C-alpha cells in the first residue's frame, strides 16, 4: 500500500496541463541567517560479535553554506553504556569520528550512548533494545524494458516474524575502463614512459575501480503482510548506460532491523528530504529523536540511536547481463607532437592531456579523461573481493 504514489501522480497532472513547460524551478530561499548550530549524532551500534562501531559527530550548517563540508565535532567523549553496567568508550579518530574497539554486546541488554562535547554540553540517548537482523535472502536486479534502467532490489524475510521494520544501506563498487587504452603512463614527476615492459602494469591507467556509499534513506516494512517478508524493495536505480555496469558492478548491501519508533524517525527524515515537492505534500514533520541534551533541555539534538546486528550480502552484475549498455560514445580527439624522442622519457606540459601512443617520431595525445581512468574518480587498486 503506497499512498505516497499520489505525489508522483500529482506532479504528473501538472505536467499534463502543459507538456512542453517545466513547472519546477530552482528556488533560493531568502537568506536564512541563523544557524541553529545543533549537534548531529550519526551512528549505529553494531551488536555483531567482535564488530567495531563508528560514530560521527557534526554540527548543522546554514542552508546557504557550501554543501558536503559538514562541520565536524571533534574532542568529545563518546561512551556506550549497557543496562548491565558495561561501559565502552570510543576513541576520537579526529575529524568528528569516534571508533570503538571490537565489542561483544549482550543481545538481551539495553544500551545507551552518552556524549560530552568540548564545550561541556552533555547528551544522552534513551536506552534501546538490541535488534537482530535476519539474513538477506537475495539481491535481484531487473532492467526496465522501456527506460533501460536497472533497478536493484532486496528480498528478505524473518521466519520468527520479529523484525517488521528494516533499514538498508549499501556500498557499491564497479570496474570501469578509460575510453582509450594507452600503453604509456605518467610517473609522479609527469614523465611519460612505457608502462608495459619497464616497471609494472600497476602504472597502467586503463583499469579502474570506484566505490560509493548509499545516500538515500532506505526503509521497508512488512506490517501489512501476513508474513514478515520484504519482496523486491528497490535499493537503487542505475540509469541506462551508466559507467557503473560498463564492465562489472558489485553491491554490498547491509541490513538491520529497526524498532518501530526508530523506523518512524527515519521515515520522517526520509519524507522531509526525499519525498517532498508535489501537490499533496505532507507538512514537514518535526524531527524528534531519542537523544536529549542534559545541560539544556530546550536544545534539540539530531540523531536516533539504534543498536543491532547487521547482515550483509554482496551481488555482482556484469555488462553481459544487461542489454544495450554502452556508455559511449566519448569525445576523445587526439593531438600530436613531433618533438617527442622515441623510447625516451618525455614531458608534456598541458596536464589536461595525456599520452596515448607513439607512432614513429610522433607522440599522440588525447584528453586525460579519455586515457586515464582515474580522471573519472576511481582508483587503480583492485578491491580484494574482485
Amino acid at each position: 500500500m503506497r499512498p505516497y504514489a499520489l505525489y508522483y501522480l500529482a506532479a504528473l497532472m501538472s505536467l499534463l496541463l502543459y507538456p512542453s513547460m517545466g513547472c519546477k524551478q530552482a528556488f533560493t530561499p531568502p537568506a536564512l541567517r541563523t544557524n541553529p548550530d545543533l549537534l548531529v549524532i550519526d551512528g549505529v551500534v553494531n551488536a555483531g560479535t567482535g564488530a567495531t562501531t563508528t560514530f560521527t559527530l557534526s554540527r548543522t550548517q546554514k542552508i546557504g553554506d557550501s554543501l558536503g563540508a559538514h562541520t565536524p565535532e571533534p574532542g568529545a567523549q563518546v561512551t556506550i553504556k549497557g543496562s548491565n553496567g558495561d561501559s565502552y568508550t570510543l576513541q576520537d579518530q579526529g575529524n568528528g569520528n569516534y571508533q570503538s574497539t571490537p565489542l561483544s554486546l549482550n543481545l538481551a541488554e539495553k544500551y545507551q550512548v552518552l556524549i560530552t562535547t568540548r564545550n561541556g554540553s552533555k547528551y544522552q540517548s534513551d536506552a534501546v533494545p538490541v535488534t537482530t537482523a535476519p539474513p538477506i535472502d537475495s539481491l535481484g536486479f531487473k532492467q526496465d524494458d522501456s527506460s533501460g534502467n536497472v533497478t536493484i532490489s532486496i528480498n528478505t524475510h524473518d521466519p520468527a516474524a520479529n523484525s517488521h521494520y528494516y533499514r538498508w544501506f549499501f556500498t557499491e563498487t564497479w570496474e570501469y575502463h578509460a575510453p582509450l587504452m594507452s600503453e604509456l603512463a605518467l610517473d609522479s614527476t609527469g614523465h611519460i614512459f612505457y608502462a608495459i615492459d619497464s616497471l609494472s602494469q600497476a602504472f597502467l591507467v586503463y583499469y579502474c575501480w570506484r566505490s560509493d556509499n548509499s545516500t538515500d534513506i532506505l526503509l521497508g516494512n512488512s506490517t501489512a503482510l501476513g508474513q514478515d517478508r520484504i519482496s523486491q524493495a528497490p535499493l537503487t536505480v542505475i540509469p541506462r548506460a551508466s559507467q557503473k555496469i560498463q564492465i562489472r558492478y558489485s553491491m554490498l548491501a547491509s541490513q538491520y532491523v529497526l524498532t518501530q519508533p526508530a523506523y518512524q524517525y527515519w521515515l520522517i527524515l526520509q519524507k522531509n528530504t526525499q519525498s517532498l515537492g508535489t501537490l499533496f505534500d505532507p507538512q514537514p514533520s518535526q524531527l524528534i529523536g531519542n537523544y536529549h541534551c542534559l545541560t539544556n533541555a530546550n536544545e534539540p539534538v539530531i540523531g536516533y540511536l539504534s543498536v543491532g546486528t547487521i547482515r550483509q550480502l554482496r551481488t555482482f552484475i556484469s555488462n553481459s547481463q544487461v542489454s544495450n549498455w554502452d556508455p559511449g560514445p566519448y569525445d576523445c580527439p587526439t593531438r600530436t607532437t613531433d618533438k617527442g624522442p622515441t623510447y625516451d622519457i618525455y614531458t608534456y606540459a598541458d596536464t589536461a592531456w595525456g599520452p596515448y601512443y607513439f607512432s614513429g617520431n610522433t607522440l599522440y595525445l588525447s584528453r586525460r579523461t579519455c586515457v586515464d581512468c582515474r580522471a573519472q574518480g576511481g582508483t587503480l587498486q583492485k578491491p580484494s573481493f574482485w
Partner: protein
Amino acid sequence: MQGLYTYLLLTGHRTIRSTRSLSRVLLTLTILVCTVFTAAAQDTRTIDGDFNDLPFPKFADRIESITHYHFFYDPAEVDSLVINIKARQAHLSDLLDLAFKNTVFHYAIDPQNNVYITRRNAIQTTLPSLLTGDSTGTTGGNDSLTTFTPTNTIPAKALRSSLESKLFEIGTTGGKTTQGRATLTGYIRDIRSGEALVGAAVYLDNPPIGVITDQFGYFSLQLPIGRHTLQVSSAGMKDTKRQLLVRSDGKLNIEMEEFIPSLIAATVVAEKRSNIKALQMGVERMNIRTIKQIPAVLGEADVLRAVLTLPGVTSVGEASTGFNVRGGSADQNLILFNDATIYNPSHLFGFFSAFNPDIIKGVELYKSSIPEKYGGRLSSVLDVTTRDGNSKQLSGNAGIGPLTSKLTLEGPLVKDKTTFILSGRTTYADWLLKALPDKEYSNSRASFYDGDLHIAHTINAKNSLYLTGYLSNDQFRLNADTLYKYGNRNVNVKWKHIFNSKFYGVATAGLDHYQYSQSSDSNPVNAYDFSYRLDQSSFHADFNYTPGNRNALDFGLSSIYYRFQPGQNVPVGSQSLVIPDIVPREQALESAAYIGDQYTITPSLALNVGLRYSFYNYLGPHDVYTYESGVPRETASILDTLHYASGKNIKTYQGPEYRVSLRYTLSDNTSVKLSYNTLRQYIHLLSNTTAISPADIWKLSDPNILPQLGSQISLGFYQNFRSNTIETSIEGYYKTIQHFLDYKSGANLLLNPHIETDVINTKGKAYGIEFLVKKTTGKLNGWLSYTWSRTLLKMDDPIAGELINNGNYYPASFDKPHSVNLIGNYRFSQRYSMSVNGVYSTGRPITLPIATFDLGGGQRVYYSDRNQYRIPDYFRADLSFTMEGNHKVHQRFHNSWSFGVYNLTARKNPYSVYFTEENGVIKGNQLSIFGTAIPFLSYNIRF
C-alpha cells in the same frame, strides 16, 4: 362611494425601465380591462411654488411631495423637458397646460390621481361613456383626444411594459385579510425558460417591506390593502414591477427577462437594494452568467474557482478545489448540490470542479450568518443549485473544449407540469498524456465524467416534486501500475407543499455516497486493493411561516444517518501476501431541530434570531479504546477495549447553536448589520497534506474525538451609490474554532483503527476585514475586493505529548493576510464581451528548512517551526473574450465561442517550495502549477 370602474390602458412598443413611467403609445395597441376601485375624489388642492429650470422628473417629484398625485412617464421621453413655472394657487391641470404648451407632450389624470405623461397622443383614462356611462378623468394638451382601436396582438417587446403598467387586482373585496393586510404569494420565473428565480428581491418602496424568493422562486409577502407598486429584482435579470391593487390574500406569478444591457437603449434605474435591505450578511450569490464570465483554466467555466474570487475565500493553491472561508479549513464547508451533500467536488485531483456549468443556475455562499436551517459544518455553506429545465420547449446545449465535451438536454416532459434537465460531461485527457515526451507517462490513463438529472414536477398548485440525481467518477492509472478511482453518487427527492398563503413546507429525503480506491497488481506479492467509502442518508423537513410582514418564521427538523467504511486493504490474486485489513465501520446519527424568526421591529431595524439544537449519537457496533487519563494517547496507553453491540448508543454529543443577526438601515442606500453564530461539526476530514486530496478520509466524532465547535461575530457596513448600481461594503469578523484536528509528526491516518493516537486537538482563531466594491449593471460591470485576514492555530491539548511550535499560535497553511480580487466584464455589443480577472495574495505560509546536516550517508534538512515562512506572493491576470452568434430568436442553433488566456503574464506562481536531496546534495525547488500563459478556446452550441 366606491364603485366599480373599468378603465382602459394603452400600451406601447417601447421598453421602459423606470419606476414611474408610461409606455409610449404606438400603432399596435391593446386593451386590458381591469377592475379597480375608484379612489377618493380627485385631489383638488392647489399648488404654490416656483419651479425654475427643473428637469421634468424633479418637477414631478416635487408635485408628488406636496400633493397626492402620482406621475407616470418615460424618463427617456422627457429628458429634454425643463419646467419654468411660477404657480400661485394653481390646479395641476392648469400647471400642466402651461408647462406643455407648444410641446409635443400630453397629460392625462385619472380619478386615482395618477398623472400620465405621453408624447403626441393623450391617454384616455376612462372608457367612452357608452361603456360605463361615466367619465371622471380629465385630459389636456394640444391635440384633440384620439381613441384607439384595440387589437389582440401583443408584440413581445410590449408585453413586459404592458405588464408593468397593468393594474393587477389581488384578491376580492370580501376576501381574507388580516388587520388591513393581505398576503401575496407567487413564483418569480424566467420568461424564456420558465425556470424559477432564486434569491430574487420582491419588495415595496413604501412602506419598505420585502422578501427574497426561496429555492423554488417562491415568495410570500404581506401588504397593506390598497394600491402599490411591487418591485422585483434578481441578479442577471431586468428589474420589473407590477401595479397592484390589493384587496385580500392572493397570488401573482411574475416572469422576468434576462438582462442583456446592450439590447436595451432605455435608461436603467436598477433597484437592487437587496444588499442593503437583506437581513443576512456575508452571503454571496453568483449566477451562472457571472461564473461563465470569469476566465477559467482551459476555458472550462468552474463554479468553485469562481467562488475563490469572492472576498474571504482563499485556497492553498491552484491545484486545490478545496477552499477556505474566513479562516476555516476545507472540510468545514458544506457543499450542497440541490441539497445533496457532495464530499469531493473535484475532478483530476482538484484541477477542476465536478459541477457541469451548463446545468448550474447559480451558487450561494454563506460565510457569516449561516441560516439556522443549515448545520454540520463550521465555516460556510456553498449551495449550488441547478436549473429546473426549460418548461416551454425541448432544448439543449453542447460544448467542446480542449479537455472536456459536454451535452445538456432539457425540456418539458408533460406540458406545464413536468420539466427535466439532463447533462453529461466527459474528458479526453488521455491524448494529452500520450503527447507527453516522457515515456514514463505514456502508459498512464486519466478519465473522468459527471452526469446530472433534475426533474421538477408540479402536481397541483399546492404540491410540487423535485428529483435530483448526481454522479461523478474519476479514474487514474499511473504507468499501468496503480489505479486510483473516486466518485460521488447522490440522489434526493423533494416535496414542496403549500398549506396556505402564509405557510409552506419542504420535505427532502436523500442518499449521498462517496468512495475512493487505489489498487495495484504489478508485484503479485504485494498486490492490493485499498478503498474506503461513506454513505449518508438524510431526511429533513423545512417549514416557512409568514404570519405577517413583521415576522417570518422558519423551522424544521433534520436527521442524517452516517455509515462510514474508514478503509480496507485486501489482497488481489492468489500470490498476494497482503493481509486483509478492514477498519471497522462507523455509524452515527446527527439530528437537529431549528427555529428562526426574521422580525422587522421597525422599517429600518430588523432582527433575525435562530436556534438550532443538534444532537449526535455515535452508534455501535464498534470497539472503542479507553486510554489512561493524563498521559499522551498512544497504543501503549490503551487501557481497555469496550465492545458495543449493533445499534447501541456509544456516545452522545449535543448542544445549541445560536444564529443572531441584526440590520439597521441608516438611509435608503445605507445599512449596518451585525451577526453572531455558533456552529457544531461532528465529522472531520483527516488530511495531513497542505491541499486536500481525494484519498483523505472522513472520520466521525467518537468518544475520543470531540466535535468541532465554532463561533463567529461579524459587523458590516453597506452603502450603495448611483441608484444602487454600485454596491460597497465593509465586513469585519472574528471567529474561534475548537477541537480542530492536527496531526502528530509522522501520523498514520490510513487504516488506523485508533486515529486518536495520531491526532492532536487544536484551537484556532481567525479575524479579518473585507472591502468590496461591485458594479452590477451597465456595459462595464464586475467587482473589486480587498481582504485582510489572519488565521492562527494553537495546540493546547495538555495530553498531546509533543506540541507543534511549543504550543504557541502559528499561522494556518491558508493564512494569506492580503488578498485582492478584480473581476471586470465589458460588453462591447450584444455579441462581443471581454472579461478580466486579477488576483493578488500574500504567499501562503510554509515550513522552511533552516539548516542542513549529514546523517545516514546523505545531506538532510532541518525544518523551522511550522509555517514560520511564506512562499512568494501570488499574482495572476486572466483575459477572455466571448463571441456570441447572432441573436435572432427563431434560428435553430445559437452558438458561441470563447477564447482567452489564463495567467496572461506567465508568472510562475509557486504552488509550493520544497527542498530535496538528490545524490547527497540539498536543492531548493519551487513548483508552479500553471507556470505559463495558457491559451484556451471553446465552442458552445445551444439548440
